[in-house]
């Protein structure tokens, strides 16, 4: 062997690919070290042998190497890459990527070279990736929430089963459509804004946008958007998870109702007392009337008192009924000062009886806001009832409204302050939690403030509390002022 031949032999025997060369009688005329190492065969077990003698029968059966060899000799074309699983007793299982390549000589195809590349490791990795993918896909598919991916412009690219169930639209119908086309009437602008914010800020959390199902039903959905970026932080798509709020809303409605019943109980007690005054006056006036039927001037005086008393009693009952009957509904342009006045009418007498002095400081030209006035009435009532409970020996209640201008937006600020017992430090973080109550069992449901929190949040607002034990508490509610009413 010349130096150069030796050099090539060295290269070929160290190349990490198994090489077998067959002659036209389909016998091996060359085998490299790599093949012998992998198969743990001796050179003598390979050289001059046919494929049938070298490879395990099972492998021969499905790879049909002998047939492919013959085909390559006959046709003169290479057999492109295929996969083979090599299992043989005593050696670890391997996966090869193999190809057959004709080697042309003077008399046409004299030899065919079998190249076998060990891809066991790559296959294992690929399998792992697949497994992860399948797992992720099953997570997405078995989720109860809508999981959707979009291109950077909001065109839907995938849509999961839960999404299909909620919208009654198949993924096929949805893919290629813009996400906003799913919105209920008048809601698409909110979603469009969310898409823009997502591309700018990367994330949009918990925005509520109603969607319309195939059959035209509107469904409230809470959406969380995030952007997907590649390694170079280029925006490649958007992802969103949407939670169907129908049930949550129903539950919230029931909670609001039960909290309302609880405050109704408090109110009813107060109102029973409150009714006894006009009833007392009316009854006394009527009795006087009956005793002195011959004094027309006096009769007139009595009748006037009877009438006023009845009117007052009716107003008290009407206020209670108005509060009891209302079912939460549409947000309408609302004057918050007026709502506060209504609340104070409901509870005012009770406060007076408890020797609580109410100080009003209502901002005169408060803009109207889109709100459910009756729900807010419930919020104010609850906070005021709590304040009155904090002042068992009487005290002062300050109610203030003001307009707070922020850089771009405006908000109404409603402050309810008392000089009652205050809230202990260890309780202050929990007071908006449902069922948190310091009242004895049977006295309070602990739902009041959690409902207030829910109602205020639903109005896009905030509710905060500050308190010093022994000095009193201050509840602050901020409600956003929207331009369009």
């Amino acid at each position: 062997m010349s130096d150069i031949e030796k050099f090539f032999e060295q290269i070929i025997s160290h190349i990490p690919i198994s090489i077998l060369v067959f002659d036209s009688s389909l016998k091996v005329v060359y085998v490299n070290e790599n093949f012998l190492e992998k198969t743990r065969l001796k050179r003598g077990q390979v050289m001059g042998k046919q494929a049938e003698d070298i490879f395990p029968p099972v492998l021969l059966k499905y790879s049909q190497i002998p047939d492919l060899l013959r085909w390559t000799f006959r046709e003169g074309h290479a057999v492109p890459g295929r996969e083979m699983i090599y299992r043989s007793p005593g050696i670890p299982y391997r996966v090869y990527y193999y190809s057959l390549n004709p080697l042309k000589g003077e008399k046409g195809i004299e030899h065919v070279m079998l190249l076998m590349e060990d891809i066991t490791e790559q296959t294992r990795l690929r399998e792992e990736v697949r497994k992860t993918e399948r797992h992720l896909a099953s997570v997405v598919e078995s989720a109860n929430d809508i999981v959707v991916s979009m291109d950077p412009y909001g065109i839907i690219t995938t849509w999961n089963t839960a999404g299909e169930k909620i919208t009654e639209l198949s993924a096929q119908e949805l893919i290629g459509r813009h996400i906003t086309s799913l919105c209920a009437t008048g809601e698409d602008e909110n979603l469009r804004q969310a898409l823009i914010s997502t591309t700018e800020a990367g994330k949009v959390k918990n925005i509520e946008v109603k969607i319309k199902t195939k059959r035209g039903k509107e469904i409230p959905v809470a959406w969380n958007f995030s952007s997907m970026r590649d390694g170079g932080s280029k925006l490649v798509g958007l992802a969103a998870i949407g939670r169907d709020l129908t049930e949550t809303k129903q539950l919230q409605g029931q909670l609001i109702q039960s909290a309302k019943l609880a405050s109704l109980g408090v109110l009813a007690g107060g109102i029973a007392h409150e009714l006894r005054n006009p009833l007392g006056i009316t009854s006394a006036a009527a009795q006087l009337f009956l005793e002195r039927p011959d004094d027309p001037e006096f009769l007139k005086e009595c009748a006037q008192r009877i009438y006023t008393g009845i009117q007052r009693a009716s107003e008290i009952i009407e206020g209670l009924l108005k509060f009891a009957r209302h079912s939460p509904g549409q947000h309408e342009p609302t004057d918050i000062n007026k709502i506060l006045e209504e609340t104070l009418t409901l509870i005012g007498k009770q406060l007076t009886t408890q020797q609580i002095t109410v100080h009003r400081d209502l901002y005169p030209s408060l803009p109207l806001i889109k709100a459910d006035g009756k729900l807010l009435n419930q919020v104010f009532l609850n906070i005021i009832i709590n304040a009155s409970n904090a002042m068992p020996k009487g005290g002062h209640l300050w109610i203030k409204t003001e307009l707070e201008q922020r850089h771009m937006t405006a908000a109404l600020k409603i402050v309810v302050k008392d000089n009652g017992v205050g809230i202990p430090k260890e309780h202050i973080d929990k007071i908006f939690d449902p069922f948190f109550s310091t009242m004895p069992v049977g006295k309070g449901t602990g739902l009041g403030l959690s409902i207030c929190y829910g109602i205020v949040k639903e109005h896009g607002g905030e509710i905060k509390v500050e308190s010093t034990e022994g000095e009193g508490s201050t509840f602050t509610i901020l409600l956003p002022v929207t331009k369009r009413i």
Partner: protein
Amino acid sequence: MKEREFVTLVVDDEVDMCWALERILQGEGFETHSAYNAEDALNMLNKKAPQLVFLDVKLPDMDGIELARLIKTSNPAMPVILISGYYYNDDPTIQKGLEEGLSIGFISKPFKINEIRHYIHRLFPKKSLSK
């Protein structure tokens, strides 16, 4: 009947309630005065020197029971009749007031005129005879 012989004071934050009680008492021949809060009531007590006080238990500036206690401190013999739209007769607050002798009776709203008259006739038998 001599003037100033029988004077009553009605204390209630409800103007019309004061009106009704005054009319009833005037019908019985009393001179009547009304106060709508505790502060007024204490002033009237000094100025008008009533012999009987009808007192609402819930007043805007002070608890009626507390006011009764104040009245009793300066005028131990003054008969006070508690009246309320808030409590009933069996309420512990009222029972305690009666037991402590702060009040000789309790009337719950709405009431019968005769309940008022019953107390008057018990306190002023001569008065009822003269009628």
